[in-house]
Each structure stands twice: as C-alpha cells, then as structure tokens.
C-alpha cells in the first residue's frame, strides 16, 4: 500500500496537509490531556479549598495585570528540594477555582504557591514598593503604584458573575447561597455572595488593613490579601501523606 506513496502527494496538497497535520498534533493532546478530565484520581479529595473572596479575587486580577506570572510560578513540584524550600507540593484541588490557573513553568523569582502567611503584611507592602530594600540581591522591579492606586471596585459583581459562569461557586441567589453554606460553612459562604461583594470587599480590607492604611482600599490591599491566602487553604496536618500518593 505504501509502495507507491510519495511525500509529494501530501506536500503539494495544502488541504490534505492541513488535515493530516492537525490529526498528528491532536494525538498528543488527546492521549495526554483528555483522559485527565475523566480519571477519578486527578482531583484530590481534600477539605478547605474555597473560591477567593472579592478582595482576594481583585488582588489576583492585579497579579495577572502586572504580569507577576511571567517570573513567579504557583506550583510546587513533588521534589525534595522544592518541598524543603517552598513547602508541601501543590495539589490539583488547590487551583480548582483558578481561572486561569497560575502554575507557570518559568521561575525568575521564587514559587509563590505557599507564600501565604510566610511573611508579614508590612514585608509584602515594603517589598512590593521596593523589593531591593528587603532583598538586596533581588532583580524584581518596583511596584510602588499599587500603594498609590485606589482599587477599582466598580465592576466587582460583574467579575464574580463571570467567574460563576465558568463554574466557580459564587452565589447569585438564596438557593445558591444555601448550597454554599452547606459546602463551605456560613462564614465563607457569606464572602461568596455576589450581591454583598462590595460590602465584603471593603470589610475585609478594613479589618485586614493589609497596606497599613485604613483610609482607603488600595490595589496594595488587594494584592497582599491575595498573596497572604496562597497555599493556606488546605491543612496538611490533617492529611496522611500516603493518601495523596494515591491520587496519581
């Protein structure tokens, strides 16, 4: 059958070349990626992972706007050196509400998957304003405008509604709110209720006082709130290490 086959037949026929190229390229994706959507062991069964609060969510938007992901990954790989430096390896379940996820494959700066709680708010504020003042050997640029800019909260409900459409369980009505109470408990469910988003955002910025200035909600408040929650949702002291081994 292949005796008389010549590349020329494909190479001189653009339509056929296109179809066959697409076929060849999609095999890799189909074999490596598609089954993950159906394997039961893809997503670990752990407690504690919740969607971001409105303030954290806005912080994440700014994280993406400033391109933090170009230098910082958010995925600790299951290697001993990474575990020693950054903490427990990242779970798939920990980014299930991230759209898009921030795993990344390029580290100029350190991984941030578990930076939450590692440093104080003041450190983050000072470090974002002028990284070299905290870490002399750092090559990170200054982000001093985060402290100066007031956070744009005008479209916070719309942003959460958009995330809700992708499957993040923010609640838009009472029925969904009750579902969240069952799933996350009342305290968390309240922060996920879209009609109260603005109120909750301001309240969290006030009580957390992330940027050291309670008079207004700055972009710094949002970014630090986001950084301080990264990797803190799952309590690993309650999980046996061998249970996570089985989700692979």
């Amino acid at each position: 059958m292949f005796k008389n086959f010549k590349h020329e037949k494909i190479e001189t026929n653009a339509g056929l070349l296109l179809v066959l190229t697409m076929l060849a390229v999609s095999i890799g994706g189909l074999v490596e990626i598609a089954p993950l959507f159906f394997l039961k062991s893809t997503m670990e069964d752990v407690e504690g992972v919740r969607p971001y609060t409105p303030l954290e969510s806005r912080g994440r938007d700014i994280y993406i706007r400033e391109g933090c992901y170009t230098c910082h990954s958010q995925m600790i790989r299951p290697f001993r050196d990474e575990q020693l430096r950054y903490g427990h390896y990242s779970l798939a379940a920990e980014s299930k509400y991230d759209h898009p996820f921030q795993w990344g494959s390029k580290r100029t700066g350190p991984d941030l998957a578990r930076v939450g709680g590692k440093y104080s708010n003041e450190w983050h504020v000072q470090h974002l304003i002028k990284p070299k003042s905290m870490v002399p050997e750092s090559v990170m640029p200054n982000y001093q405008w985060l402290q100066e800019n007031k956070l744009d909260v005008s479209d916070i409900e719309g942003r959460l509604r958009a995330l809700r459409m992708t499957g993040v369980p923010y609640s838009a009505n009472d029925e969904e709110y009750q579902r969240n109470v069952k799933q996350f408990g009342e305290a968390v469910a309240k922060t996920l209720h879209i009609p109260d988003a603005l109120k909750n955002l301001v309240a969290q910025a006030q009580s957390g006082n992330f940027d050291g200035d309670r008079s207004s909600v700055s972009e710094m408040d949002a970014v630090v709130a986001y950084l301080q929650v990264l990797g803190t949702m799952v309590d690993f002291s309650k999980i046996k290490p061998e249970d996570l081994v089985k989700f692979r």
Partner: protein
Amino acid sequence: MADNTPGQAQSKGVQTTGHVWDGDLQELNNPLPVWWTYTFYATMVFALVYWIVYPSWPIGKGFLPGMNTITYVNADGVEESWHWNTRAKLLKESQEAVIAQKPYYDKVASLPYDQIAKDPELSSFVVSAGKAVFSDNCAACHQAGGQGKVGFFPNLTDDDWLYGGSYEKINETLTKGRRGYMPPFAEALDPSQIEALANYVYSMSGGKADDSKVAKGKALFHSDTAACFYCHGDNAKGRQDIGSANLTDKVWLWADVPGLADDTAKINAIKTVIAGGLNKGVMPAWEGRLNAEQIKLLTVYVHELGGGK
C-alpha cells in the same frame, strides 16, 4: 525558472524532486539513512517497555499503573507499596533523608540547648542545616546574616532582645510569632509634649538634647498623662514580656536614629514614632510551616548568631 519534471540527477543516478534551478541546480530525494530508521524503531520498542514499567495508557476511569512500584512507610508505620509516581517517590526519598539525618535530629530533639551548642559535631550540623532553614524562611526579613533592617525587622546578631534572648524565648517567638504594638500619642498629647518626650528618649541613649525639654519629657514619661513607664518600665529598659523596647541603649528599630545626620532629624524620627505609634512588627508563627525539630535547630542557630543569652 524551475522545471518541475521529476528526473535523475546527472551525476549519481539518484531520484530528484524534479526541480531544476539555474539550469543544473537539483534537489535530490535520498531515502532516510539506515541508522536513523533503526533508531526510530528502537524508540518505539523503548516506548513499549516504558508502557509496561511506568503508568501509561488511560483505560476507562483508570489507567495502566505499570509494574514498577515504590515502597514507603505509611502514617501507621506500616510499609506500603503503590505504583510508581512522583509523589510516592518523594515520600520515599523524604523518609530516607529523614533516616540519614535522624541521628542528628534525634540528638537535637533530646539534648538541652546549651549542650547542643557545646557539642562540636552537633553544632556544626546546626550551623549548616540551620543556615539552610534560615536562608529559606528568615532571611527575607532579617537579612542573610541576621542583621535585620532598621525601620522594619530587628537585628538578631546583637544582644538586644525585644521578647527575650534565651533559648526558650527564641523558641517561643519562632513557634507562636509576635506582633508589635504601641498606641499613637498624636491625639493624647500636644506637639510640645511629644517634642519633650522625644528629647528625653534621645537623651537616654546619650544623645545631645535640650535640657529643659529633657526635664519636661522625663516628668511626662513617668506621669499618668503619657504613662510611657507603664510599658517601657520605670527605668525605661523595656519589658520583654510585652516586647516593649529598651530606650536606654543605642539600638534602634523603628526610628532610624543611627542613620540620620543631625540631632534635630534624629529627634524628629523619634517624634514620628511617638505620635503615630506602631501597629506592626509582625513576626509570623512558624509552627504550621516548620516542624518542632527545625524550630529547635533555628533556635540554636539564631542564639549562636551572636546575641543569645
């Protein structure tokens, strides 16, 4: 122009693609080299072996786990095997590393602090392992050598301690974290009172201040109006149980007194702290991130940085 008729190369008799440029420039259509073809077949054989040994093809809701297994010890202390994967490999490697370091960590855990520091072999372990843990977790704030940062984070290499420099107190600080606080006095006191207090505070560490202001400040310090003595103590040497600063030494954390040029600027810096107060100086709690042995290791490391008591 190219002539598109397939033909034979003039010299070797090899098939060509039929393109001819400039009259005699041709594109040969040689078959793939034999070595290349067999290497390609070899990679296919390798893939077959790989599928048998390691997790590979998805089947229904599961996948072929492969024959290779990894044995580790589970939380109940029982050996357990699972098909090869990076998480199982990490668990096993971590356990082997723990076994390798176990004699040292056991000694660190069982011996009292001062004996760890005296044992030459153990203290060299503490210095090297402690340095690694310190660099990953503490150096971002306290800086690589533990020298701290005036205005932000305390120096760990001197013998001035806000919360105590004994092994036990350092361990407590590491485990539970700390939070600094001083109320703002801008509303409770008028500017001349704050000026007087700043002069008095500056004079206590040998600074050149206005004598009449110092006298007024001293009276205020010990009065119920400002009540500075309540936290900083009658002798102004601070109270380590609440982390209030010793004002009589030349060590400054919040006001950059050593870094400023003249007396007025130095006093102004002190005024800013008195007026605005402090609601910072947060040390995170490390008990959730580091285990008890690592914290003990760090305790000895920080103690040995120079100022341990």
